[in-house]
């Protein structure tokens, strides 16, 4: 329709005028034109966080081009430490911060330039949900959110003007199950080491996360009570690895996995019937038409969070563009997009504005879906009547027991982990 009106309204004369104007600007490509050159932000993160739709929408809304650099979980901190010039914006896990910040390759973000800094989800900013404290074993985001000043290499204990990472996505992980292949009720992390599932369980081969899952299981079984699962002593590490080796030699594990797709394949093929899983991975198994449950457990969840950080080298228009992009990211469209994939966004209120009430009720309030729930790409995720596993936002994030972590004894832990793999 609009096309038609335009066409009839366009005379030959006006076309000529336009052409002349164009020729004019082309003839004088003065500073004005130069300043209009689009900024490209090189966005470093894992592939899971890089939605093409977000880049497209940002480019449309802001005139900023997003160039994704996708690497795997471990490569993100390695890139930050070894090649801080190779990106303009990093989406990193909070648990990497104890390694990244002392390197001095990241810079504190000015809280005054983040429009919705006061609206960040409290679970990230304060470690609370509805005013109640959640578990803070491990590297809890609120403990590493602030820096003393812009170039500081140590964390501030009190809120300051300088932010390490602005949250992008976070969620809580638990055990995923194949209910069609399991005929008992699962209520505890201890099931990961249950001999009934011998040869049918899996564990992550990313040592810092895998050992946390193992610790949840071993503690749930009643073998030990950890001081801080996310920051074990050498004795605790020894004990944990010893128990893992016992289980491995008894043939408990079918395989270990180290990326999203592997965990999905193991589960979908039925090689594994119970394993620690990322919430979107459970969704991915289900979209293949295979029953898979994200099982809430008595001991609570292992949570993770990742967020935007800036490299020390950023300045000028790139820096402005980065802040602009982050502010846009928090303004709702991206938050709603990520919510539909099962992640939680930094600012809940704005995401809500961009979601249909029935979507919000399903994803955040733990209510029955009033109509079919669609993924961002339009595929049906759940039919009407379904309820999200783990229930509402409060039920999930409120039951967090620990966070992904890098321990003080990390080097020792990695060595012991290699022993476990070799055993």
């Amino acid at each position, binding site marked *: 329709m609009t096309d038609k009106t335009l066409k009839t309204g366009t005379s030959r004369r006006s076309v000529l005028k336009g052409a002349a104007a164009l020729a004019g600007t082309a003839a004088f490509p003065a500073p004005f034109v130069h300043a209009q050159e689009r900024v490209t932000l090189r966005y470093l993160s894992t592939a899971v966080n890089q939605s093409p739709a977000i880049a497209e929408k940002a480019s449309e809304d802001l005139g900023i081009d997003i160039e994704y650099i996708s690497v795997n979980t*471990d*490569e993100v*901190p*390695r890139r930050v*430490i070894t090649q801080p010039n190779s990106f303009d914006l990093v989406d990193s896990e909070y648990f990497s911060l*104890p*390694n*990244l910040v*002392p*390197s001095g390759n990241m810079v504190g973000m000015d809280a005054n330039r983040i429009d919705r800094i006061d609206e960040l989800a409290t679970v990230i900013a304060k470690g609370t949900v509805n005013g109640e404290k959640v578990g803070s074993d491990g590297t809890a985001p609120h403990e590493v959110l602030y820096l003393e000043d812009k170039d500081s290499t140590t964390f501030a204990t009190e809120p300051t003007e300088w932010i390490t990472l602005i949250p992008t996505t976070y969620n809580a992980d638990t055990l995923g199950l194949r209910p069609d292949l399991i005929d008992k009720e699962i209520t505890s992390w201890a099931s990961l080491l249950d001999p009934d599932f011998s*040869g049918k369980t899996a564990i992550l*081969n*990313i*040592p*810092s996360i895998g050992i946390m899952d193992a610790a949840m299981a071993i503690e749930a079984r009643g073998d030990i009570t950890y001081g801080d699962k996310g920051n074990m002593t050498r004795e605790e590490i020894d004990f944990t690895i010893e128990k893992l080796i016992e289980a*491995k030699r008894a043939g408990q*594990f*079918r*395989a*270990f*996995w*180290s990326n999203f797709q592997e965990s999905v394949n193991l589960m979908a*093929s*039925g*090689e594994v019937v119970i394993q620690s899983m990322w919430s979107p991975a459970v969704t991915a198994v289900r979209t293949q038409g295979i029953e898979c449950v994200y099982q809430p457990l008595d001991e609570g969840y292992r949570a993770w969070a990742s967020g935007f950080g800036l490299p020390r080298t950023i300045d000028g228009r790139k820096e402005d563009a980065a802040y602009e992009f982050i502010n846009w990211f928090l303004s709702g469209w991206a938050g709603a997009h990520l919510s539909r994939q099962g992640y939680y966004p930094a600012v809940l209120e704005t995401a809500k504005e961009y979601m249909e009430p029935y979507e919000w009720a399903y994803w955040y309030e733990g209510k029955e879906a009033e109509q079919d729930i669609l993924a961002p790409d339009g595929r049906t995720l759940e039919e009407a009547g379904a309820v999200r596993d783990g229930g509402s936002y409060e039920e999930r994030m409120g039951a967090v027991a620990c966070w992904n972590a*890098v321990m003080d004894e*990390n*080097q020792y832990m*990695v*060595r012991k*982990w*290699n*022993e476990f*793999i*070799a*055993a």
Partner: protein
Amino acid sequence: MTEASDTLAEARQDRASATGHGTARRTGPMLVPYLQAAPMALVFLIFFVLPLAATVAVSFWQYTQYSIVPAITLENYNDIFQDCLRDLPDLCTTFRTYLSTLKFCLIVWAMTLTIGFTIAYFLAFHVRTLKFQVICFLLCTVPFWTSIVIRMISWIPLLGRNGLVNETLISMGIIHTPLEGLLYSDFAVILSLTHLYTLFMVVPIFNSLMRIDRTLIEAARDAGANGFQILTVVIIPLARPGILIGSIFVITVVMGDFLTMGIMGGQQIASVGKIIQTQMQFLQFPLAAANAVILLAAVLVGVWALLKLVDIRKEL
């Protein structure tokens, strides 16, 4: 030995005559061979010698979780072999890992050698015309047109718990519960490594077999040797260089492999490569470098021992 020195003398003569021509043309006679070798030497220097030197240097550095410090220390090597002597006869992680890798090496070597030699023998002696030999040889290389990872993971749907093999066996009534050991096991690793690297044996052995003077075989037969004697007394000794080159390929590749052992072993099987990868992930570069140096040394010792068995420069 005498043969070797003869060849050497011949080579010297050749070079002398080449130099003669050079002088005749009055172009920097001494410089030409160096210039000719320079591009390759440069490539080696930049992409092999320098990185290797850097690896060796870094293996002596100190590190924290977020930095490496250029200070000479033996700490990394010490860490790798920590408690190894104390714990004997129990094996420490490092010894256990090398032993496991060595085990795969030997088994895969034996498998690829048997299969590779058989294929090469068939190609060289049973396929009559050169045309068909070339066609068959090319057929052998067809799988190499796809990526190594694809060739590897294509085994997974076959070997899985609900895979093709298990389902077939169950439907035929041979087994009643699926065989668990087919996938994510030593068996799976050996199977896929053999599948991946047999061609590395076929090519050099085929090459050696083709060079065997057929009159020697006829002579052996005339002298009353039976088929088995011809094989063991004439053909295998003459195929030794090919076997050796193939062995070096297979052994060095398997020693450093971590992808196949990772994927087919369900990441439950330790390999030196995997240990290095884990250490790199956790930014323990100096430790990873030290492991790499030790692995390199182990492989070099193996290759050196193999080279003792045959004078490869003469045979080429």
